[in-house]
């Protein structure tokens, strides 16, 4: 059983699992309603009078903060609660394949929810002449950011068999990493920590990297940031599961 065969088996099981229950439909409906209402009511999308989706994408980090942990909380906590983890981990597959398969299923699912916001893209193209390159980059950035939140959430979900705890801790962790470039956080460190550390903390901010991609410039460094962050948390995820089984 190669790594990718095992990953694909876990991926498809998880992916169809979303659609076998109301979870997928409820999530997608809430996701689209939230995206729409924030953009049109709070963001005053029509009143800006500009053919761009900055308002729409600007809300993504904050909506993800609650929606993505709702998706990630069950990834491992549920398996541990129901005992199916014992089944999964005694099958002849590497733990990393299970971790990656589950993560990819959630990430692709989040991607589908994101793609279903396409009517707003049609709207803005109907009303004006937006820069579709910028919109494409923003979609990509948004999806990468969702992947970052998911990897953190998956890792935290492996630490507990309680989904509520997984949700709450993930929201807090994601909030901190999102605003780590913000003055509130930086002021806290600025007084005593060396500049290098303050800069390092600030560079972890999802907002900073997402804002850079939203400019329409897909900088290699921003892609590497999200890619490395996802890889790091999935690696920790594997370690967490291995540690729980260690003798």
């Amino acid at each position, binding site marked *: 059983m190669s790594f990718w065969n095992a990953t694909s088996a876990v991926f498809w099981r998880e992916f169809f699992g979303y659609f076998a*229950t109301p979870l997928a439909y409820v999530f997608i409906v809430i996701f689209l309603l939230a995206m729409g209402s924030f953009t049109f009511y709070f963001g005053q999308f029509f009143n800006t009078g500009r053919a761009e989706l900055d308002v729409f994408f600007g809300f993504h980090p904050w909506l993800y903060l609650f929606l993505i942990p709702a998706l990630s909380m069950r990834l491992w906590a549920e398996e541990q609660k*129901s005992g199916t983890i*014992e*089944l999964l981990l*005694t*099958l*002849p597959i590497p733990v990393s394949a299970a971790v990656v398969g589950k993560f990819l299923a959630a990430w692709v699912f989040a991607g589908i929810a994101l793609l279903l916001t396409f009517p707003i893209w049609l709207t803005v193209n109907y009303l004006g002449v937006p820069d579709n390159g910028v919109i494409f980059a923003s979609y990509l950035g948004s999806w990468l950011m969702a992947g970052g939140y998911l990897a953190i959430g998956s890792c935290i979900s492996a630490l507990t068999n309680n989904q509520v705890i997984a949700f709450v801790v993930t929201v807090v962790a994601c909030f901190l990493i999102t605003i780590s470039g913000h003055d509130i956080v930086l002021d806290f460190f600025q007084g005593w920590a060396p500049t290098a550390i303050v800069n390092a903390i600030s560079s972890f901010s999802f907002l900073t990297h997402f804002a850079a991609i939203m400019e329409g410039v897909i900088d290699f460094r921003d892609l590497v940031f999200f890619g490395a962050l996802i890889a790091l948390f999935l690696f920790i995820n594997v370690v967490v599961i291995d540690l729980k089984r260690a*003798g």
Partner: protein
Amino acid sequence: MIEIEGLVRRFGELTAVGGISLKVAKGEVLGFLGPNGAGKSTTMKMITGFIAPSEGRITVCGHDVVEQPFEAQSAIGYLPEGAPAYPDMTPVEFLSFIAQVRGLKDDAAKKAIDTAVVRTGLQSVLEQRIETLSKGFKRRVGLAQAILHNPPVLIMDEPTDGLDPNQKQAVRSLIKSMSAEKAIIISTHILEEVDAVCTRAIIIDKGKIVADGTPAELLAKSPTRRLDDVFRALTTPDAEINAEGRA
């Protein structure tokens, strides 16, 4: 086919399994007996590679469970305690997933699933979600999953727990029908089961083997010739105290 040497598992201060050694050959059905918390399930979790031993060595069909986990796990069919299965899947979807992970493809997978379904009598519920099934059917789904790839080694943790007398009988017949060409370990605290299906029984108490022999040999240890009495005499702390008190 299964060889265990000096197996120890500690959870912090607690020693769940305190030095178990045993061998199981092809054609043997070994019954693990013991009170709740004696270390039966923990031992099974180590044989199947779900948790790692603190000390000792396990080989399954010549493969060290720690060094070559996938080779060992490929040779094992495992029914974990409570027969966990993914509730949102139907039995046929669930078995297809297991077949895929076990590396069975197309015709081989279809044939394996058909055989397992017939042997466990699942035909009537193949398209029902597992969460809607009765306890007896859920257990049979777990059994079907364990025997799907026709493994040379079967490990079953309380395979008849919670079943009605007819279902118990059916599961015992199934185990007997497979026993000739496999090495099987079942755990139970139903003593009549040992008489019904096991060729050999081991009584475990506080993580140690306190008796090992054929059901007839174990019976010979009691003046009353009842397995219940042997079990109680070997595993009840009060019995020891009373015996010492009298002496």
